[in-house]
């Protein structure tokens, strides 16, 4: 061993010593600086999980509101807003649950909150109740006619436009403007309270459209007529013609 060491040139010896010193420093310093729980659960500091889950909760969740406000909750639970959590309108309630006297939640009473959801936007899905706030009772606050915990409108909206705003607007500028919705769609009463369960019907045969568009009855003179046998190959009418904007 010593003879091997003697054979190494002098400059190399100095370098080896220097390298050993540097390595030793690194090995001594590293454990001091690396957090002790690093690597326990993966390549990260395990106590980070505790830091993260210690974050205070701001939204209490819809269940806890019913413990004190059970009457309002029951009313809302049977209404159109049954799936809208209390905190959507009233804001985060976790602090209020602990200190109900001192921390009062917001109560939006003006017009600017309701339209966040209910303003008419063409991108909103059909079937969602929307109004054009500029023309829908612009001087009244929404809660005058609609109780937020049971927002059933005071009158049934005519022409299905209350929920099917996009379709109603298309139909309004189309040639079908005089055709009422119920002419083509039989609507059960349950559709107004449970729209996704009770569906209106849709026509199934070409002959339905043919009642106006393939007839020589004088009452439909002036309406475009086609030969129902040959027009449109095997497709039904609405596969090419959008009935709400034909």
């Amino acid at each position, binding site marked *: 061993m010593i003879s091997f060491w003697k054979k190494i*040139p002098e400059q190399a010896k*100095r*370098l080896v010593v*220097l390298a050993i010193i540097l390595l030793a420093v690194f090995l001594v310093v*590293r454990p001091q600086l690396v957090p002790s729980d690093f*690597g326990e659960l993966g390549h990260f500091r395990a106590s980070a999980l505790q830091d993260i889950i210690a974050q205070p909760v701001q939204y209490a969740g819809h269940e806890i509101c019913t413990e004190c406000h059970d009457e309002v909750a029951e009313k809302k639970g049977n209404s159109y807003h049954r799936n809208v959590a209390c905190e959507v309108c009233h804001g985060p309630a976790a602090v209020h649950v602990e200190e109900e006297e001192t921390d009062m939640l917001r109560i939006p009473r003006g017009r600017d909150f309701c339209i966040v959801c209910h303003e008419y936007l063409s991108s909103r899905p059909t079937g969602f109740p929307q109004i054009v706030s500029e023309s829908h009772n612009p001087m009244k606050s929404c809660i005058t006619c609609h109780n937020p915990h049971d927002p059933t409108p005071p009158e049934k909206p005519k022409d299905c436009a209350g929920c099917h705003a996009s379709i109603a607007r298309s139909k309004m500028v189309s040639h079908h403007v005089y055709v009422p919705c119920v002419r083509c769609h039989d609507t059960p009463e349950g559709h107004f309270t449970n729209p996704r369960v009770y569906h209106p019907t849709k026509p199934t045969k070409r002959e339905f459209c043919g009642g106006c568009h393939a007839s020589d009855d004088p009452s439909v003179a002036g309406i475009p007529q086609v030969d129902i046998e040959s027009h449109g190959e095997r497709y039904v009418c609405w596969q090419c013609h959008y009935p709400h904007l034909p």
Partner: protein
Amino acid sequence: MEEIIQHLTPLLKEVSGYIFPNEIELHWGLLIVLYPYLTGLVAGAFILASLVKVFNVKELQPTYRMSLLTALAFLIVAPLPLLGHLGHPEKSFEIFLTPNTSSAMAMFGFVYAWYLMAVLLLEIWFDYRKDLIMWSRKEKGLMKWIHKILSLFSSDTSEKALHFDKKSVKVITIIGIPSAFLLHGYVGFIFGSVKANPFWSSVLMPIVFLFSAIVSGIALVLLIYMIVTPMRRKPIDMMCLNKLASYLFYVMIIDFSLETLDFIHRVYESEESIHIISELVSGKLFVSLVVIQVLIGMLIPLGSIAAAKLFKLPDELKKLIYFVAAILVQMGIFSTRWNVVIGGQLFSKSFRGLTTYKMTFFGLEGFLFSFILLIMPIVILYILFKILPPWDEARQPVS
């Protein structure tokens, strides 16, 4: 917080098309442009030095030690833009303590450390050791001690020891060439492996980075040689200069071919991101890419050096051409880094919009700090030239 609001609010108006809301802040700015530029110069200068030792290109001997010291000066400054850019530079040592082995950035820290210590410093040490000993024997005062400490108090100047030095230098250079490739290729890989960004994500990225690095390194050493030699009132060795220009020319041809290949490939495949990238290159990036990177930084230097090689021109004219070409090359390569780093962040990952980059003057991410960082290696180089003079005349024979 106020600063951020003031900095970001005007950017909202400059967005065209649609960008993801979080993309308004462009994260890797001027400092991250500077970083690959600096490491590129290091790799390039080292490759040039290796041409002398490994491939025995005798004409370049006057620039050998100069290249090594240039590489060292820039390598010392290279981590500074990174530290300045981090959100928490005080925790930067975490990269060395708990590196994530799947992260190119973490592994790069070790490549850098390896290159600095095992390659560059070792090679300089072995090459200078004899001279350090001879200088410290002749001098007095501070310089004597500086040289003595740098030599690690070594004193063996026998034939055997000198022979060992020479062999070590050769071995280290041979190891150093792939290390230099790795050093800057890795930086290219840090960008090239990001699949989220189709401008960066490319197999060619590390290769293009590397060759443009070699171009910039050779051009830098050429500039330093042409500036320092007359300052010392010594004549410029035209054989050396012509050789430098030749190598610069050949590497530029390779680099230009690679960049052209990347462009052709991109346009030919015409993937999803081609529309927004075309919009970017023909709009916001037109000046920095087409004009500065390609025309000024590549085509004009290539043409002028080719002219200098083809036609019989007087030496003075050749020197002027080389000098101007080298400066244009530096501008071009810096622009290359700018186009990759900042260009890659100017288009949204939605592929539907473009954002903008506003450079500030003050502050760590500002122009002033980067300018200081660019000057710093020159200052360090000056100090290195004083402590470890690289001129052949400074070499001390053994007495």
